[in-house]
């Protein structure tokens, strides 16, 4: 594996193996000194053309804990403001010696394009509406580890609630969850659903009330207020009446059911209930797990050359 651009680049076996590797990373993260020398001498550049605090910090923390050097680039404080092109930016940073780029960009496909301009590995940290693969991996990790079913989500039902159409998180999650055996039900107004769901392997529901008491996972997406007009929703209140997680709805969740959210939470919009009041909430655990998953991804891409092997038998 050279790049991680989309969950679709990963075979189901590779997904399972990254989740297993994240268990090793979680053990490291639980130590008093959470640092190992695994990626000593490697350089990871985080290049964010779109605002993000948690994903950038999560990747940088992951790289630091594996002893890689971290280079940080944010578009707002860079030569992009002086008109430097994306290609020039990448080529310039590459020339400084980078082993992996972690890219966030508002245009779908930008990370794929960047692989043409550098020898380094490229990790997609969110591109437009397209993909956010490490988010889907950390979500699958959080769900499988909470249900103690290490390699599968077989027989579990996940409701993904909110603006599916404009969500790279939803696209990535649906791919990973369904391949691990989960049933996915999308809960959204018609305008927040893609025009065709053919081939997605999902079902839909027209309100949260339809599914809240039967699903194993409630996955709330962030609602952007500025998209309300496009959704032809008369008001946030009307949206909330059908799709917001209220204290009443949260109380109807099954005892074992989990509440997830990729953050940042929009209190009073999609999350009317205080998540700390929901026993099944694993929203902060997602953040913690994100570091372990990103360590596993960085280690998979940079930790070794799986095509070269020594065959000297016992290796001690």
């Amino acid at each position, binding site marked *: 594996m050279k790049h991680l651009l989309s969950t679709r680049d990963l075979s189901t076996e590779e997904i399972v193996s990254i989740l297993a590797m994240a268990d090793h990373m979680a053990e490291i993260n639980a130590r008093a000194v959470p640092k190992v020398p695994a990626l000593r001498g490697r350089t990871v550049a985080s290049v964010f053309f779109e605002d993000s605090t948690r994903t950038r910090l999560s990747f940088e923390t992951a790289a630091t804990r594996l002893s890689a050097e971290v280079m940080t680039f944010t578009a707002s404080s860079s030569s992009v403001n002086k008109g430097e092109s994306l290609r020039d930016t990448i080529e310039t940073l590459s020339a400084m010696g980078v082993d992996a780029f972690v890219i966030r960009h508002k245009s779908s496909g930008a990370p794929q394009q960047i692989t043409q301009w550098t020898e380094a590995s490229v990790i997609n940290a969110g591109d437009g509406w397209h993909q956010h693969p490490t988010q889907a991996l950390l979500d699958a990790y959080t769900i499988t580890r909470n249900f103690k079913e290490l390699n599968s989500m077989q027989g579990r039902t996940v409701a993904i609630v909110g603006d599916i159409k404009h969500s790279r998180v939803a696209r990535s999650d649906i791919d990973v969850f369904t391949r691990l055996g989960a049933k996915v039900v999308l809960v959204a107004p018609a305008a927040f659903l893609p025009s065709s769901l053919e081939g997605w392997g999902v079902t839909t529901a027209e309100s949260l009330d339809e599914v809240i008491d039967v699903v194993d996972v409630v996955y709330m997406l962030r609602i952007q207020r500025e998209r309300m007009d496009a959704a032809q929703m008369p008001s946030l209140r009307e949206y909330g009446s059908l799709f917001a997680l209220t204290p009443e709805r949260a109380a109807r969740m099954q005892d074992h059911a989990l509440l997830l959210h990729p953050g940042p939470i929009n209190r009073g919009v999609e999350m009317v209930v205080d998540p700390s009041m929901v026993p099944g909430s694993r929203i902060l655990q997602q953040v913690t797990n994100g570091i372990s998953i990103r360590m596993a991804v960085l280690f998979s891409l940079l930790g070794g050359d799986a095509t070269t092997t020594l065959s*000297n038998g016992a290796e001690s």
Partner: protein
Amino acid sequence: MNSTSTVSSEILGVTDVDKALKRIAHEIVERNPDLNDVVIVGMQTGGTWIASRLHENIAQISPEVSVPLGAVDISMYRDDFSLRPIVLSAPTDIPVDLTGRTVVLVDDVLFTGRTVRAALEALNDHGRPRAVQLAVMVDRGHRELPIRPDYVGKNIPTHFSDEVSVGPVGVTVVAATGEPL
């Protein structure tokens, strides 16, 4: 696949392995009068079954002492990533703070010493042991680092390219004869 034929010979049988594990357990008890300080740590994955057998034997010899048993995964500490595929075993599990303890590090085969070097670095992330002793079932020579074992099941002279396999039922050396198949 190997392009040359191989010759396989059994060096230790199942009873030899049992005897070696009993002898090493006695040596560990003898060398460490204060057994309360000792922690047995197996190296993932080849050393863990040996560590747990030693742990059982020590419990029989000194039932009044409960010696902690742990495991260490060294895949994040190797110095030869670019030479080998990543093989992740089971995660590290060190049940106690190692500071001030005597760690008996356990592996199946001692070869170049690089895995042991990595394990020493890994152990240090769980505290500062007072001492680390090394127990191996087989010492096959060819050291590339200044590392020696404290307890050995069997010294076996080998060619660098031989393969040594160690399991509860015995120890086998597979030698390439160099003759094409």
